[in-house]
């Protein structure tokens, strides 16, 4: 499998991202062994150390756990954690963009809140 | 850290000698060709002749000795030594495990080995010449000495070795560090000067009068000296042509 890696984003972040994506898509189940750094290296044609760094990132975010001599495994609630985190991140970012755009268009805060409430009612 | 491979230098040199001896073999084939050419050149009248007048009989001896063969082999060894020390040959060593010194040692061993084979080639050429001579001049053919005595073989081997060693040394001198190069040029200039001003400075007369064994020992000692210098220079020198 070849995935086009982006040149201006650190590769280990891209690897971590890809692994999270695999977990969300249920291709990596809970308590399943994840790819080793060497498998990842071959998969993406990257240096094993870089792949290891991506794995370590997920380990630090407690999405993976390590079994001595066996490798890394997906934590049971990894998928939930990722989803929760993404939800937070994406919503926060969108809200931020919304507020900034509203200000640029000279929409007052009250008006913006009203707009949101109205949209929520319409979509019910 | 995986363990490093520990190959003994002797093993490496042994392998280098094995491959070099095989790859430089064309040097020996050119010796054979040279010997054949010189056999043909000297076939009619030998390499020396003696004439005696006895009354109305004029006796002429055409002598077929080893001189020409050995001289050709000595020159060949010198040129071969020079050739082996050129960049073209030495660069090939870098593709395999070697240091400059190990490659020099291996080359030296090959020169020694080839000198031995050269002695055999000399003997072969000599006897091939004799058989031709016998078949053509059956009635006037005299065998003074048929078997080459071991002491003469030693002299052959020693002198060929010495010339090979000198060739190699000269070659390495010109490829070595700049100081060695300058020293060599200086040496040549001085010796040329000495030879021109005092031609009698080099007197081989007394050397020739030594016994075969002593001559060969002298040759070997000089050759060893040259070989030693070659290794020393090789150990100091860098791979040129960067």
């Amino acid at each position, binding site marked *: 499998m070849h995935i086009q890696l982006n040149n201006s984003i650190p590769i280990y972040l891209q690897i971590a991202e890809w692994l999270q994506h695999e977990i969300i898509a249920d291709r990596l189940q809970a308590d399943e062994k994840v790819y080793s750094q060497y498998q990842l290296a071959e998969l993406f*044609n990257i*240096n094993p150390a870089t792949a290891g760094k991506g794995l370590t990132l997920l380990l630090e975010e407690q999405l993976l756990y390590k079994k001595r001599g066996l490798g890394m495994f997906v934590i049971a609630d990894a998928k939930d954690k990722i989803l929760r985190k993404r939800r937070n991140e994406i919503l926060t970012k969108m809200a931020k963009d919304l507020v900034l755009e509203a200000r640029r268009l000279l929409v007052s805060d009250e008006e913006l809140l009203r707009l949101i409430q109205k949209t929520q009612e319409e979509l019910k | 850290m*995986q363990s490093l491979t*520990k*190959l003994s230098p002797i093993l*490496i040199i042994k392998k280098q000698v094995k491959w070099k001896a095989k790859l430089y073999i064309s040097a020996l084939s050119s010796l054979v060709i040279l010997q054949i050419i010189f056999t043909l050149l000297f076939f009619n009248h030998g390499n020396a002749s003696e004439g005696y007048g006895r009354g109305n009989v004029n006796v002429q001896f055409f002598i077929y000795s080893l001189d020409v063969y050995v001289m050709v082999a000595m020159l060949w060894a010198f040129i071969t030594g020079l050739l082996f020390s050129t960049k073209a040959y030495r*660069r*090939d060593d870098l593709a395999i495990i070697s240091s400059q*010194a190990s490659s020099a040692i291996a080359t030296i061993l090959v020169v020694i080995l080839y000198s031995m084979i050269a002695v055999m080639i000399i003997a072969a050429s000599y006897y091939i010449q004799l058989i031709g001579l016998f078949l053509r001049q059956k009635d006037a053919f005299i065998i003074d000495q048929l078997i080459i005595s071991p002491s003469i073989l030693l002299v052959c081997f020693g002198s060929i070795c010495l010339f090979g060693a000198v060739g190699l040394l000269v070659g390495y001198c010109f490829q070595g560090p700049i100081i060695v190069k300058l020293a060599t040029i200086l040496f040549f200039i001085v010796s040329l000067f000495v030879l021109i001003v005092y031609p009698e400075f080099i007197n081989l007369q007394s050397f020739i009068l030594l016994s075969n064994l002593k001559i060969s020992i002298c040759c070997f000692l000089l050759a060893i000296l040259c070989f030693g210098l070659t290794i020393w220079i090789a150990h100091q020198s860098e791979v040129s*042509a960067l």
Partner: protein
Amino acid sequence: MKVIRCEQLSKSYGHRQALQQVTCAIDGQKIVGIIGRNGAGKSTLLHIFSGHIKATNGTCQLFDQNPFNNIRTAANTILIDDQLSFSNYLSLSDILTMAADFYPNWQNDLAYRLLQYAEIDLAVKHQQLSKGHRAIFNVVYGLVARCAFTILDEPMNGMDEAIRQDFYRVILKEYIAFPRTILIASHHLQEMETILEEILLLHKGKIITHATIDELREQLISLTGPNEEIDVLCAYLPIYARKTMANLSSIIVDAYQLKLSHEELQARGITQTALSVSDVCKYLTYEEGSDIDAIFD
């Protein structure tokens, strides 16, 4: 475990200083890219590592020994460059046989398979190979020897695009199969940056930087914004490069010296973009007045 340690290493050819007081240490079992512009001293450094040339000053320790004319380090070192040559009497298959005799970890089967893949006829001589085929053969030779210290000097020169990609993968796979220290000097950083772990950036005989790929990538950033705001930054930041178009300017600055947060920059109308590793290397080795545009002004 450091494989190589250099202290104050200098090399000069007459008056030309090829290396100036290089001090570095390289860890074992890493793929390290030796990057630099033409004439930066890459080859000189690699030839000192391989023991082919002697440093004018300073020390170099390979496996805790001086590599110069050292048969023990030579047994664990292989240097592949375009000057690699073999006797005219050897066909390629003979060369493989000979190398198998010398290198204890030699992988003959692999060599045959790789050369077959590259459609190289093993009956020909090394000199008869085309430039690209010779480069392929040399890389294969360097990799299957499985020396603990493998130096590839411009290994991909002359290969076509497709085979270059293949062989970066070959290098990686061989590295995984038999971890060793591999130094690759190349101009094609962009192609191979993914397989590298560290980069040693040389410029004019000096080491500019020795860092992991990601550290290097984050070292410089590009800032684009209105001229006035950029001028303010220029006042206190060292600038690697600056381009001005109408009333917008973009500058390349050291990320670690930029004390402003993302928000602060955004407030000033400055956008921040990351650079690729090869761009970082390009800017780090930028000379003043080496802007090609300046020639046309």
